[in-house]
């Protein structure tokens, strides 16, 4: 080769394009090759060289592989913008796909699959069919991936031409590379389809486990990830699977190790023998720790995963806390994660060691890290009662160094320690007060003021201390103002002398008349009224005993943790968010079956429905519309209701007594979200979702008995909810033998047991049977199920209603991730959910659509969608007499747009 490739980047004085054109048509091979290289160079720096399309394609017919590859690279880039010219290349492609050289055959198929032009797609089918059956494994493995490419462009074509069957055949191929690609392709296709395409049976399972041993490292990850969706029938099968996966823990590739860990954790849920479980925990510990010897980037991923694992199985790494000690040269993102895990693993046994580390970290340079270390000491104090005193003395030592941000952070955590151990450590208050005037962060100030107010009777000069803050009251941030207000009231109630009396006047005056903050004003008025009408009552309220706090600040909600653990070794486990919270695929080539379209029950439904669920749980597509509310939010807003309350409510209701089970079941069709995982329900798994059929609302339920005993006598009960949903009849579930499952459709009625307060989507359910304790779970009420069939409005009445509703009834929201790429399909989908199209208009480059809908008791929704077809970002504005329903409505809309 002559010279450097970089010379192709240089420009010439004579116009570049004409010169290239000339060179591309040169009679000399070398010159042509050089010219194509120059074209590619221009392409990679973003220059438009599409005008050379014909000339480049002319170079395609060559025996020189190097040149051919370059031309193909060009084609992939520009074919889309020149679809008519791209046809010129088809003949060569088809010819190349039959070339005696397997590299050329594979290259042709690979490239054709990357050219997303409809006309080319038609010609791709025959070569692809041949290549899937090629003698050469390199060609077959390329063809396997090509099926996934084609499915992405035209799913129907793939199904019609029987490519899915060919792909499934490749799972039994004798070349592991081919198997791995077939698995990857099938897994992707399954993810984008609502039909069961790639189901892992025990037969495929054993085939894939065998292939696992011969695969490349990457193939092993594909296979392990696909297999992790498999649900073993019983503990024995689970143990068998684990046994065959365990050797993967020794792999040098971290991705293989983590995927193996995921698979083992999943199967462990089913294993009942404690010995086996203990042994597995022991085996997993060293490889998990070894991940921390990899590059820092991988360490980060490993630590985020370990964080989840130790929440479920703390014993695995209980003895390994030392490996989580921060290294001097760890990147900050690694240090932060290590701290979090150290807190989780801290125990009475190792706390001294841990505190020594934290103390050291608290004097390091990085401010964020130092703050987190100080907070960690506080959290350990709250977590470990016996170590609290030691933690506090470390905090005091740190305060004495007088580094400003350390002092402030320490005061914040000491406030929490006081909340956890009331009336125990007040002796240190004097030390804290020394730092009073250095505090400048709102949270630290507020914490200090809280401490002074809370212990006013023991601090001699509490009034002086508070008074010093009062001067700047109007300038303080609201967090500090609120604390000052409360602390002054506390002081006054505890020491009703002249000084505090004057102070309270100043504060109440400031907080009522001279503030714009409604929270502050309201609180001040309440205090004022309390103090003026009944000071004793004020004492009872303001000085009431506070509930003791616990350290759950970084503990995940159990249902979220379940979901995240099922997603170990995926992005979800790094973000600690369920997949549907961040997965937004732009293109979707899905023929999604609507809820209404599900075929009504046939006898064969049983076996199928259970496998549906297995797929549904793990595929983000299916779960996007179905994960229970509590699991979906990173911050679990509706805290699980305390059990006795719910029970009380349930028993106290007389309009629908607990309903017995006495009739045969009706099989359910759709993959339902799991609301009670088997791990929580002692083997009983319940999946459920509200759906609408023929104008009526049903609760579609699937019961799966993974326990060792037969279960019968099922009953169901609903707690009060925003829509007053209640069962309209008895729950019909037959006796469930171990391993059996049954689905049912429970008819529901509305407005039976309404809860008060603003509407929310929380549905609390209790299910009992004769063998187990009562199970409680939370489900989400999808507003979709409530849109009635008679929600269509005439254009004129739409306009009238829109005008008659005041502007305050209009609520709008942006959906930045949503895309409408096919208007007709979207309208169909909306209509299927009883959102009726009224009209459309153009506004600048945007389309504006109007719809109407209604929910029971005739509450209408007038909807306006503004969007640009094919571009992410949909703006939705609604007008309705019940604007408080807007959040629920937007959730429903998002589900529809996302499909």
């Amino acid at each position: 080769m002559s010279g450097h490739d970089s010379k192709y980047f240089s420009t010439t004085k004579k116009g570049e394009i004409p010169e290239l054109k000339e060179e591309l048509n040169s009679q000399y091979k070398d010159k042509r090759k050089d010219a194509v290289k120059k074209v590619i160079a221009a392409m990679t720096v973003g220059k438009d060289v599409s005008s050379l399309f014909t000339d480049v394609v002319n170079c395609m017919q060559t025996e020189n592989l190097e040149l051919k590859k370059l031309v193909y690279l060009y084609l992939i880039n520009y074919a889309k913008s020149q679809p008519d010219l791209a046809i010129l290349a088809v003949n060569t492609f088809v010819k190349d796909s039959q070339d005696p050289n397997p590299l050329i055959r594979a290259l042709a198929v690979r490239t054709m699959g990357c050219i997303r032009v409809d006309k080319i797609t038609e010609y791709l089918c025959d070569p692809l069919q041949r290549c899937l059956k090629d003698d050469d494994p390199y060609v077959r493995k390329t063809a396997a991936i090509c099926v996934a490419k084609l499915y992405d462009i035209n799913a129907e074509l793939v199904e019609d031409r029987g490519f899915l069957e060919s792909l499934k055949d490749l799972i039994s191929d004798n070349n592991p590379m081919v198997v791995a690609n077939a698995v990857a392709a099938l897994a992707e296709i399954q993810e984008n389809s609502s039909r069961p395409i790639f189901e892992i049976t025990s037969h495929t399972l054993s085939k894939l486990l065998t292939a696992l041993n011969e695969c490349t490292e990457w193939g092993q990850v594909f296979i392990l990830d696909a297999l992790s969706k498999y649900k073993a029938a019983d503990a024995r099968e689970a143990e068998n699977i684990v046994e065959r996966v365990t050797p993967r823990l020794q792999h040098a590739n971290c991705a293989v190790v983590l995927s193996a860990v995921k698979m083992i954790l999943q199967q462990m849920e089913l294993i009942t023998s404690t010995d086996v479980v203990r042994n597995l925990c022991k085996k997993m510990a060293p490889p998990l720790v070894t991940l921390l010897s990899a590059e820092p980037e991988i360490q980060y991923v490993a630590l985020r995963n370990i964080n989840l694992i130790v929440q479920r199985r703390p014993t695995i790494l209980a003895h390994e806390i030392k490996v989580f000690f921060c290294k001097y040269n760890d990147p900050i993102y690694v240090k932060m994660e290590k701290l979090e895990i150290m807190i989780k693993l801290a125990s009475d046994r190792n706390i001294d060691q841990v505190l020594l580390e934290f103390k050291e970290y608290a004097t390091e340079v990085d401010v964020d890290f130092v703050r987190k270390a100080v907070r960690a000491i506080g959290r350990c104090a709250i977590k470990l009662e016996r170590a609290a005193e030691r933690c506090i003395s470390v905090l005091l030592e740190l305060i004495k160094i007088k580094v400003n941000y350390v002092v402030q952070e320490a005061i914040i955590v000491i406030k929490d320690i006081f909340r956890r151990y009331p009336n125990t450590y007040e002796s240190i208050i004097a030390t804290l007060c020394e730092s009073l005037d250095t505090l400048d962060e709102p949270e630290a100030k507020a914490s200090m003021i809280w401490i002074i107010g809370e212990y006013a009777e023991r601090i001699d000069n509490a009034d002086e201390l508070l008074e010093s803050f009062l001067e700047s009251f109007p300038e303080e941030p609201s967090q500090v103002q609120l604390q000052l207000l409360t602390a002054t009231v506390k002081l006054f109630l505890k020491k009703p002398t002249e000084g505090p009396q004057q102070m309270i006047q100043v504060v109440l005056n400031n907080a009522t008349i001279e503030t714009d903050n409604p929270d502050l004003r309201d609180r001040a008025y309440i205090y004022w009224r309390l103090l003026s009408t009944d000071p004793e009552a004020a004492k009872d309220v303001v000085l009431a005993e506070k509930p003791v706090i616990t350290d759950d600040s970084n503990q995940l909600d159990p249902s979220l943790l379940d979901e995240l653990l099922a997603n170990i070794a995926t992005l979800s486990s790094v973000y600690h968010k369920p997949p549907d919270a961040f997965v937004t695929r732009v293109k979707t080539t899905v023929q999604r079956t609507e809820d209404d379209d599900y075929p009504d029950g046939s006898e064969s439904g049983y076996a199928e429905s259970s496998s549906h669920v297995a797929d549904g749980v793990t595929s983000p597509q299916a779960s996007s519309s179905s994960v229970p509310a509590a699991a979906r939010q990173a911050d679990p807003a509706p805290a699980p209701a305390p059990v006795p309350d719910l029970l009380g409510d349930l028993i106290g209701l007389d309009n629908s007594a607990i309903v017995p089970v006495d009739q045969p079941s009706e099989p359910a069709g759709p993959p339902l979200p799991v609301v009670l995982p088997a791990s929580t329900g002692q083997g009983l798994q319940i999946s459920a979702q509200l759906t609408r059929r023929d104008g009526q609302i049903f609760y579609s339920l699937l019961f799966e008995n993974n326990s060792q005993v037969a279960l019968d006598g099922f009953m169901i009960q609903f707690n009060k909810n925003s829509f007053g949903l209640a069962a309209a009849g008895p729950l019909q579930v037959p006796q469930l033998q171990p391993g059996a499952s049954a689905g049912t459709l429970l008819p529901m009625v509305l407005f039976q047991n309404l809860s008060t307060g603003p509407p929310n989507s929380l549905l609390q359910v209790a299910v009992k049977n004769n063998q187990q304790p009562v199970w409680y779970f939370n489900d989400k009420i999808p507003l979709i199920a409530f849109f009635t069939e008679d929600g269509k409005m005439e254009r004129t009445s739409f306009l009238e209603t829109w005008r008659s509703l005041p502007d305050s009834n209009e609520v709008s929201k942006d959906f930045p991730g949503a895309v409408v790429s096919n208007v007709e399909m979207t309208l169909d989908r909306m209509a299927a959910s009883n959102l009726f199209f009224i009209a459309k208009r153009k506004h600048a480059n945007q389309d504006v659509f109007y719809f109407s809908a209604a929910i029971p008791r005739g509450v209408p929704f007038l909807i306006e969608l503004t969007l640009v077809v094919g571009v992410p970002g949909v703006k939705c504005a609604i007008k309705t007499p019940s604007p408080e329903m807007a959040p629920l409505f937007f959730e429903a809309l998002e589900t529809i747009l996302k499909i």
Partner: protein
Amino acid sequence: MISQFFVLSQRGDNIVFRDYRGEVQKGSTETFFRKVKFWREDGQEEAQAPPVFNVDGVNYFHVKVAGLLFVATTRVNVSPSLVLELLQRIARVIKDYLGVLSEDSLRKNFVLVYELLDEVIDFGYVQTTSTEVLKSYIFNEPIAVDTARLPPLGPAAIFMQGSKRMPGTAVTKSVIANEPAGRKREEIFVDIIEKISVTFSSSGYILTSEIDGTIQMKSYLSGNPEIRVALNEEMSIGRGGRSLYDYRNSSGSGAVILDDCNFHESVRLDSFDMDRTLTLVPPDGEFPVMNYRMTQEFRPPFRVNALIEEAGNLKAEVIIKVRAEFSSSITANTIVVQMPLPKYTTRATFELEPGAVGQIADFREVSKKLEWSLKKIVGGSENTLRAKLTFSQESHGNITKESGPVSMTFTIPMYNASGLQVKYLQIAKKSSSYNPYRWVRYVTQANSYVARM
């Protein structure tokens, strides 16, 4: 699967860009670079971006290799360790083919790089990252770049510094480049590289110690012969009873207890349990034969003592002593000792030992750090640094808490702390005249070597 792969320079220039699925918008490189450059969290001051993050539904993964950012994007819930590992491997494969990994070499060889990327990933799915396997599909030839001034890459690169015994060019040789003479030199490199982490308490007691080791191999043997590597026979894996291990001399050949180890996929372990030998047919390119981790106690190569004392009004004195506790036949090189000083330090003057050669001591005004670098330290010797500090304000009386810890970086060739050894390296080839060069090299480097105060 991944959507796009790209390589950016430190300034954010686009060096390589390949889109595999067309589902992430074009501006992703700029979005990524802006986000990484100005990473902030919770309104805090600038911090280092984590290797995985999400912006507007697009997930970005990145690793830094040889000063370049290797980035992948995706929209789906992929395995992050797979993507990050893949990015590292792509860097390694490119380095294998180009000989050197740098902005310059990537730009000069962009055609070859794109050819590689097309074989490594198809539609976002990894196909292979084996340099060996890729050889049958790659037709472009690399263009050599000037290696003299380039920063070397990979663990084995540390052998290029200093020591004359190492054939420096071998490490920057492309796997497919032909020697000028037309005949390839038959040689194989086996490097035992250990990174050690030790934390000393203020009283000199060892709080934590750990060894991360790798046996790295790079083979230039023709005809892919089978190779047997024998390790210490007295080696056990997995800690049984903790705190039972006895104190071993680091150079002795006593029992080696590894906490855990893993192996490259080409390694066969048929007789490993019996006689601790590994059998493999080494693929082309540089690769780790075995990774291991050890927390068994070992003698740390250096003892560090640091002391800071007030010496009159607004003045203090620092003494740092470094003692090399290894054999005098061994020399450590490129040693740097660092110590953060109290924030209110304004000036520092240094006093090195008389006759000290190749030592520089410096006070970094901005970071308030003392930095002492030594070209080399011979085994058994002791080096001392004295510094006089001037403060701008009174200390709070706890000057020790406000300085330190002392950290150290170093490289010690021909030394290994774990005691793991390659007993022999057998190359199965019939001909008696066949006698390729075998290089078995040991090196120990500091990972996190810290003495608290």
